[in-house]
């Protein structure tokens, strides 16, 4: 999957909850596909305005943080090669409380409009944060209604899907993406989310030291069972 332009003309839609989800969780994969020519649209449901990291000493407050995080996300998108960015303007922490039908309909309309080849979102139970689970549920439901579940993958944290059995999945449900060539872009995106990442000292050490903290692969769970062609446990190595 390293040939430049191999995925030219393909489209990826990622629907996440907060600025930084795209970089901290699957920044390597997004950078990789962007570099291969994939047109990526990122939706951030909120602006992460209820985050607790305000700088130390604090230079942000509840009223200035939405704009700051929006700008940081724009910068991170530049680092990763994401060209389309949309906000749903939902208040941080309230994704699970908004009108579910309206949210699903909004995502379904986006799917039908963009017609992406691949979609990414959070797993509705393994999301780790109520906003993640809520946007994951809504996106999954929207994919189901659009008849596109086979194009949907759930992002996962770090190496948790190296042992999918612990979560009730098998190796066949997992897609492993080699991001080793795109870790510098991922690191740049981490640093673009400055107010969130500056508390993590390792991010700001030398490039070499910081890059050594990243895994060489990112893992995704299939929303639909693997097609028969991927059988025999070979394990798919890409999302497209």
């Amino acid at each position, binding site marked *: 999957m390293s040939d430049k332009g191999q995925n030219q003309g393909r489209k990826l839609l990622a629907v996440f909850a907060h600025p930084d989800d795209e970089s901290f969780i699957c920044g390597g994969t997004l950078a990789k596909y962007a570099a291969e020519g994939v047109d990526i649209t990122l939706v951030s449901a909120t602006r992460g305005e209820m*985050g607790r990291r*305000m700088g130390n000493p*604090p230079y942000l407050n*509840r*009223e200035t943080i939405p704009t700051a995080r929006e700008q940081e996300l724009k910068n991170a998108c530049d680092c990763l090669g994401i060209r389309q960015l949309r906000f749903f303007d939902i208040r941080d922490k309230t994704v699970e409380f908004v009108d579910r039908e309206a949210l699903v309909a909004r995502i379904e309309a986006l799917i039908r409009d963009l017609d992406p080849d691949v979609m990414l979102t959070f797993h509705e139970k393994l999301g*780790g944060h109520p*906003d993640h689970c809520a946007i994951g549920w809504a996106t999954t439901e929207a994919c189901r209604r659009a008849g596109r579940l086979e194009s949907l993958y759930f992002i996962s944290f770090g190496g948790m899907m190296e042992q999918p059995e612990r979560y009730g999945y098998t190796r066949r449900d997992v897609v492993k993406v080699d991001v080793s060539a795109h870790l510098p872009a991922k690191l740049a995106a981490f640093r673009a989310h400055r107010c969130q990442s500056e508390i993590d000292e390792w991010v700001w050490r030398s490039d070499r030291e910081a890059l050594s903290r990243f895994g060489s692969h990112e893992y995704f769970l299939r929303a639909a069972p693997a097609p028969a062609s991927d059988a025999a446990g070979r394990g798919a190595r890409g999302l497209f």
Partner: protein
Amino acid sequence: MQPIDPSVIQNRIDNLRDRDLYIHLEMTTGAYAAHRDSSKHPAATFISNALIRFSHGSVSGGGPFRVGLKMPHGWVYSEGLTHYEETDSERLIMAGHDREGKLVVALQLSPQPF
């Protein structure tokens, strides 16, 4: 944000007395607390843009600070405040941050909705 100077805060509280004000009041231990450590009990609560009015209010303590505002039928109380936004003259924006700079508590008052 600047570290709270109680005399400045007292002055600003006094200027907001007996007026309809929008309040943002929040306390949080962090949504990821339990994700990282299952022994943690994550708690967060906020109320945003509720309308209040207080007849008197004061700031207290030696830092972190406490603020109490007497309303016609009750109180607004907040403990753990460390910083305020010095560039905002219309609104009183205060927050309490832990040693890492993470927000723990916020108390904000404004004549206009936030």
